[in-house]
């Protein structure tokens, strides 16, 4: 029994109303799906059913794309940027005003801790709209020549790990540049997107500018494949990203792909050790490790490896795993049974291949999908847990002797989304940053996100950037290179 037992500090569920069923949001209103099909979305922390959500088929997607096209040609495209901007500012403000509601709903649907939904997901989503709002009437100055043009209709497919934040990353730049949107939320986390539709009602956004079609993989595929979609933006697995790239080959559809990762978090012997430990923890246990840029491979200099691992384990002993609605929870639920199975499978492979497993000793709830924070040591570069994206709270620890070896090991992956460097030596940071093949390099920090900061990968982690001025490029004809 700990001396300082934090009493339960549950966030109130009452701040959000969840309907028993949801239709598709097309042309400014909720409509039934053509097929009448639906899926259940559940709370992964309890497995309780939250709502029935309509499944859009090809005809529904077609309706949505047509609505988006009409809105783009008649309303949103011709609208002066300054007016578009004001809608986006409205959205940003409304998100901030309703932040608690969005945060709670995100927790219920996703399983992430309320602390993260409240302090990261929702405010960053609002900030993203606020940032891109200001671009809408300044596109002439964005470096793409005078009067850069939108592609038209953007088909956007987003993942379940940051449902609202990924929605913001997709919708904000698309609308700022004059595109209209057909967005497909993830199968397991549609609710905040549907609440966002209600927010659009309050913003009085013209019908058809944003359409939200829920469903599973087939719905996303229909969005991507629809000939009326000019621009595809996808965040998700590399496997699906490859399928999308293949699907649109030869069609001249433009694409942004934000795919998987297996980031190296490199700790040198002169690192600011306590902050490095925090960075390692934040790197792999933030959002239960269900982050494409997670620092899932810890590369630690051999001379300090033992000390770093010991300190890390001690720190993990203070992580609080459990009810995502509790304000003191650090690690919440895994998003789905399928994801839990994948994590379990890969960690099993790690043990079978000879890595040494350490799992935090904590009681896990009986209902719901849970995985205790886990660290593998004695991991070799050949192990599956060192190569494959686990997308869970599982850290693989490898060691290195020299900076060159650290670079070689860090880059030894088909992915290239992010990397971390921990050292007090400035020139080493800059040299390492140059050599790491990753789209985001965090030096003496990790997992920082900002609307002004471009995010996206090298190699099989995808292409295109989201955030910052660069995030405008792929939504503009003049800025698109692919």
């Amino acid at each position: 029994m700990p001396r300082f037992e934090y009493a339960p500090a549950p966030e109130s569920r009452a701040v959000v109303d969840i309907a028993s069923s949801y239709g598709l949001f097309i042309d400014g209103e909720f409509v039934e799906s053509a097929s009448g099909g639906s899926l259940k979305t559940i709370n992964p922390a309890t497995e309780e059913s939250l709502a029935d959500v309509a499944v859009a088929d090809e005809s529904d997607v077609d309706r949505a794309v047509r609505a988006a096209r009409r809105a783009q040609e008649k309303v949103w495209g011709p609208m002066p940027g300054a007016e578009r901007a004001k809608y986006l500012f409205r959205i940003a403000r409304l998100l901030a005003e309703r932040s608690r509601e969005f945060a709670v709903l995100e927790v219920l649907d996703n399983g992430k801790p309320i602390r993260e939904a409240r302090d990261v997901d929702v405010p960053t989503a609002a900030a993203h709209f606020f940032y891109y709002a200001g671009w809408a009437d300044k596109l002439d100055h964005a470096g793409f020549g005078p009067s850069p043009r939108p592609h038209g209709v953007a088909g956007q497919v987003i993942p379940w790990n940051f449902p609202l934040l990924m929605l913001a990353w997709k919708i904000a730049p698309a609308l700022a540049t004059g595109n209209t949107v057909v967005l497909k939320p993830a199968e397991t986390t549609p609710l905040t997107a549907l609440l966002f539709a209600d927010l659009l009602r309050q913003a009085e956004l013209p019908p058809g500018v944003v359409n939200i079609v829920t469903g599973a993989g087939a719905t996303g595929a229909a969005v991507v494949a629809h000939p009326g979609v000019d621009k595809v933006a996808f965040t998700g697995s590399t496997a699906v990203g490859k399928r999308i790239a293949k699907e649109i080959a030869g069609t001249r559809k433009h694409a942004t792909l934000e795919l998987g990762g297996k980031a190296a978090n490199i700790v040198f012997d002169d690192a600011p050790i306590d902050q490095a430990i925090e960075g390692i923890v934040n790197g792999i246990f933030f959002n239960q490790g269900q982050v494409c840029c997670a620092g899932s491979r810890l590369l630690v200099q051999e001379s300090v490896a033992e000390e770093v691992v010991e300190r890390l384990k001690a720190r993990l002993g203070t992580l609080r795993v459990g009810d995502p609605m509790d304000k003191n929870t650090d690690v919440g639920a895994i998003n789905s049974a399928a994801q839990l199975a994948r994590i379990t499978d890969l960690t099993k492979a790690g043990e079978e291949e000879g890595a040494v497993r350490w799992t935090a000793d904590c009681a896990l709830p009986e209902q719901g999908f849970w995985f205790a924070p886990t660290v593998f040591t004695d991991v070799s570069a050949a192990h599956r847990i060192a190569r494959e994206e686990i997308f869970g709270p599982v850290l693989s620890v490898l060691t290195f002797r020299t900076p060159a070896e650290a670079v070689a090991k860090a880059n030894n992956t088909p992915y290239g989304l992010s990397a971390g460097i921990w050292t007090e030596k400035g020139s080493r940071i800059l040299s390492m940053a140059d050599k790491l093949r990753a789209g985001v390099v965090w030096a003496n920090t990790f997992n920082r996100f900002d609307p002004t900061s471009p995010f996206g990968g090298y190699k099989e982690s995808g292409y295109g950037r989201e955030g910052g001025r660069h995030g405008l490029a792929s939504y503009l004809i003049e800025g698109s290179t692919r």
Partner: protein
Amino acid sequence: MPDATRLGAMTSTVTTPSSESAHGPHPADRTGAQVAADAAAVIGTADLSEAGLRRFLQGLPGVDRVGADGRAAQLGTRSIKTSAKAWALDLTISMIDLTTLEGADTAGKVRSLVAKARTPEPGDATCPRPAAVCVYGDMVTVARDAIGTSGINVAAVATAFPSGRAGREVRLADTRDAVAAGADEIDMVIDRGAFLSGHYRKVYDDIVAVREVCHEADRPAHLKVILETGELATYDNVRRASWLAMLAGADFIKTSTGKVSPAATLPVTVIMLEAVRDFLATTGVQIGVKPAGGIRTAKDAIKYLVAVNEVAGEAWLDPDYFRFGASSLLNDVLLQRQKLATGAYSGPDYVTID
């Protein structure tokens, strides 16, 4: 849905010890020779020269300021409610060094402060008492007499507090007076000028000398070493000064005099908690931490307790190892305590002024 579950027992030798092993001998019970031996063991050589100390202190891992601030801010988001809050409020009271350090202090003021410490909540015997009252050296006798057998300690600031700008003999005489007058605890200041100019050995020697004076009493006075972190300017310096003070024999390391802004901050306290945690892992000696100055609300105090709990470990959740140097904090804690008891928000007329 079960409560959030704290992860299991600590397994590391590097960090938080189990609560069983933590309360070994008090650091103040070490002889000067033991302190020196511990220091030599930490540095890896008996060479406690200026150069030796510099090599060690400057070889400590750096502190990234932004990361440290971020960690502190995150600890500050813990939500401590109901039973946890009640427990934390009482613990806070028991950790307070109720302080008056004014040029205008009088015997009457000090007696009033002691009375407040003896009876923080009139009519509520369950209310704990502060750990100590903290006064200038010339008020120790007054405080000692007023305290009687209540068990509250008398802490005295000494060594030409707050600046420390006096010769060593004067600083030692100041200390000796307070110890002779019956101070249980001495809060000394380090020579920040010496520290900032790299004269680590001077700082070390000062502390050793003051500690010797503390041990002249029958029952050694516990030594708190004030780093005055607001003048040290960087977190790297806070870490170095923490280690230097511990090597020299501090029983507590304390943030501030309260006369310099910024005084105690949560990030600085976190860094000092990391230092005592690591010192324990290295030497087996558990040193205390005392943030002082600027902690005025129960809400702030609880953030510090969360930091103690999660950074150093629960072994430090004890007045022997963690103190708050504060004056107005006590009344805010009492207001919160009343609120928890009655359910109604209280007001300043319902707590006593000291």
